[in-house]
């Protein structure tokens, strides 16, 4: 599973990093990025899903490879 933060939508609420710090990071201006190219190891999939479902800007999407 992979995730991607849509930079046009992200407003830096930081919910993703709070819920899944292993997967996301935010910069000084609140822009989030997915770490490790967005690759989510199986043991973190539940956390990634939580982040997707709690982002108030609908800025995180799953990518199907």
């Amino acid at each position: 599973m992979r995730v991607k933060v849509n930079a046009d939508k992200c407003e830096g609420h930081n919910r993703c990093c709070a819920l899944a710090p292993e997967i996301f990071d935010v910069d000084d201006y609140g822009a989030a990025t997915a770490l490790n190219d967005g690759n989510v190891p199986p043991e973190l999939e539940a956390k990634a899903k939580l982040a997707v479902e709690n982002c108030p800007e609908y800025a995180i999407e799953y990518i199907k490879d």
Partner: protein
Amino acid sequence: MTETPPVDNWATDYDLFDDAYVKDPAPVWKELREKCPIAHTERWGGSWLPTKYEDMQAFVRMVPELSSRNPLVVSQPRDEQEFDPVLAEYGNSAPPITSDPPDHIPMRRMILPLFTPKAVEKHRVFVEALCHELIDGFIEKGTCDAALDYAVYIPAKTIAHIIGVDADRIDEFIGWVRGVLEQNVGNVDERNRYNRIIRQFFGELVTERKANPKDDLISNLLAQEINGSPVAKKAVVGMCNLMLVAGIDTTWSSIGSALLHFSTHPEHRRRMATEPDLLPSAMEEMLRVYSPVTMAREVTEEIQTGDVTFKPGDKVLLNFPAANRDPEVFENPDTVDLDREKNRHIAFGIGSHRCAGSNLARLEMETALRVWFERIPEFECANPAAVEWAGGQVRGPRHLPFTFPAKKVRG
């Protein structure tokens, strides 16, 4: 506050300051969402009140047709302020909350780095010590006013500490903020008076720091540039004003509402006291159910939405609290579910004006609740009828008489 006639028709004549509505607005939102999702009123200067989540998501993105230049739920008349000498010297905006493009983003980028998760983490030790110190002040008595003895001081003292202003004047600062935001909605002159006091205070401080820079937040803001030019003094005064005004009533309300909820829901209180891991999801649920903040936008170009038309000059309220009760997005929206995992609430607003201080607010609220439950796991509201609510721009309890088993301060 209610000297206005009672409301007959909430869809066409709502009253944001109706006593019953301020205490519990959710039934009105539910009815409106079903019958008339964007209500209108002529009261308090006139406004539109949307109640659906998807409308709030759409309206925040209508920039600049919905301008932020006047984000107050009840406006102050503009012309009177133009001739005021204090406001002429120190400005009357509060960037970036009152900014539109193209100024908005550069102004916002000046303050965002102050409130990143890492930046606010540095204040955790201060906030935690503060919570303990406040509780030390009343734990031996077995009673307190959780709003006035505890919740209010957490954001107030923290933001005073961060801006670097005199903590001894904290009660004065709180009085100013309430004077502007909460207590004088119908009294233009009083509200103006408090606004001038805040502007004058920060105006003098900023002028002083400009002459004698120190290693503090104001000097740091003054040293920044926007598009290659030094930032204007008025902008820095406005930012300080914003941090004080936006930082106090809001977080105070969230902490107070949560404590009130737990004081009147013993099952939930017990779980909080015995399951510390519940705090993150419980806190987000408190923010959803008791979202304190409603913002406003001013229409600059005609907008047709559904069967209503917003005309230039109209005020549109961004009713984030009602959006957070929308059944299309939240299952059983009026039920408090401390384990709610999927909680895409928008208590801090959304879009480009999303609350810049949300990481700090969350740190304050989380610490306030955690320390409270560690030290006072059992408590109840002594007199629920005596709980007083403020509403409008920021909704939250302002008087919370609590009782609990008295304890020695520590040890």
